[in-house]
């Protein structure tokens, strides 16, 4: 169903990086080296600030002389104030599931926060459609599929996440109290997809009786 978004200027759109288990495993050797020195022990989190928030159908402009890449994640929509909840209770605080595209510059390093790469205007479009928890009681049955110009480029089942939805809500809600309108993008495929001006990017949540679709295109206007 389509639901109004409760986000305000102060809402938190929290993304979880490095949560694709295949990607995480493939980077273990690198993560034992400098500057990381050891693999992450906690979820690796970043914010998409409000200038990045966009809508289904939005056209994303590619910054001049930069490569743009995209990843899609399920966006867990918080339905009520969520503070220090257990994994067992976590799903009670979820209003539903949407899709988020994270358009960014390719990441060379995970060491420092990546404002230049991850905070481009309109780089985080969110689907208007939402799978309510009545329709998708178990997020582990969901998969996100992404295609570019009709060709499938990525598929990430929730079961391939290193930390699942309940674990993430429990951990994040001990760092920050989550509010209605906040969201957690729980995991992106490790390989972000390069896109070019004119490309059509479409993602879909499959595995429930209703589907959620998010479509964006890359603008031709960038000089």
């Amino acid at each position: 169903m389509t639901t109004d978004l409760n986000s305000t200027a102060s809402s938190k759109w929290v993304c979880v990086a490095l949560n694709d288990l295949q990607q995480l495993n493939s980077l273990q050797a690198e993560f034992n080296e400098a500057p990381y020195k050891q693999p992450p022990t906690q979820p690796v989190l970043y914010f998409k600030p409000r200038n990045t928030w966009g809508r289904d159908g939005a056209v994303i402009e590619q910054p001049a002389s930069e490569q743009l890449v995209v990843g899609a994640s399920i966006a867990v929509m918080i339905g009520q104030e969520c503070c220090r909840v257990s994994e067992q209770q976590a799903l009670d605080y979820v209003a539903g599931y949407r899709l988020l595209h994270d358009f960014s510059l390719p990441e060379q390093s995970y060491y420092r926060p990546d404002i230049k790469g991850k905070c481009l205007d309109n780089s985080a479009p969110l689907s208007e459609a939402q799978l309510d928890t009545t329709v998708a009681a178990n997020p582990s049955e969901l998969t996100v599929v992404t295609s570019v110009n009709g060709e499938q480029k990525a598929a990430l089942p929730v079961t391939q996440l290193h930390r699942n939805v309940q674990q993430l809500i429990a951990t994040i809600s001990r760092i920050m109290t989550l509010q209605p309108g906040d969201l957690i993008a729980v995991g992106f495929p490790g390989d972000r997809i390069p896109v070019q001006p004119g490309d059509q990017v479409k993602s879909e949540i499959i595995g429930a009786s209703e589907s959620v679709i998010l479509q964006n295109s890359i603008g031709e206007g960038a000089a």
Partner: protein
Amino acid sequence: MRRARVLVNKGEQQGIELDITIDQNDQLHTEDGELLNEADVSWLSPVKEPGTIFALGLNYADHASELAFEPPKEPLVFLKGANTLTGHKQDAYRPDDIDFMHYECELVAVIGKAGKNIKREDALDYVAGYTVCNDFAIRDYLENYYRPNLRVKSRDSLCPIGPWMVDAADLPDVSNLRLTTHVNGELTQEGTTADMIFDIPFLIEYLSATLTLQPGDMIATGTPKGLKDMQPGDTVVCTIEGVGALETRIVSEQAFYGDKY
């Protein structure tokens, strides 16, 4: 003009949110011209609808060397959630089972006008005013992924801000303001904004080259040298000359969260 937001109780009505101004004699005026006693108000974050909170790491050369880092060649910017904000004279908590939590006294520029690709020369036209924040850090939680990571820097209550915002027009030059921090009355941190590596006009130009700054966005500009561990029961006051003195009480995690602990 100094502008703040407070909660007051009026008879049966609890927790009424008011925009107030503070005059030269430190008297608190409501928009209806009423005078308030400071003892009767509870201070809120002075920014009514806080937007994106940008914060700077290692933006004072002496602090960078204190932490054994080379001064950065490009600003080290991280983002903070609005859950971190709390007002003057409010509580901030020390997590259980940590060894080192420290304050960071910082000058905050509050954006008043939207802009992209803002030039350094024009940057201050986009600043509505200035306030003080205390950008606490939990060093035990540092990990080398998006460092300083959200677990260190986006915790509830760990960015007190205020007491008020001073209009930019009343503070045309912020390039050499004295910063001090006192813990339980003892001076523990001292510096000047003159020692910032990347100043506010630079930061506005830098950030707006990537993204559109909007009213209510804030830039917390980093802290000078002088770290000290904080314990429940401590009172910490961060003062910036010409802006204000922000007081915070440290409580335990259990005292802060109460029933939710």
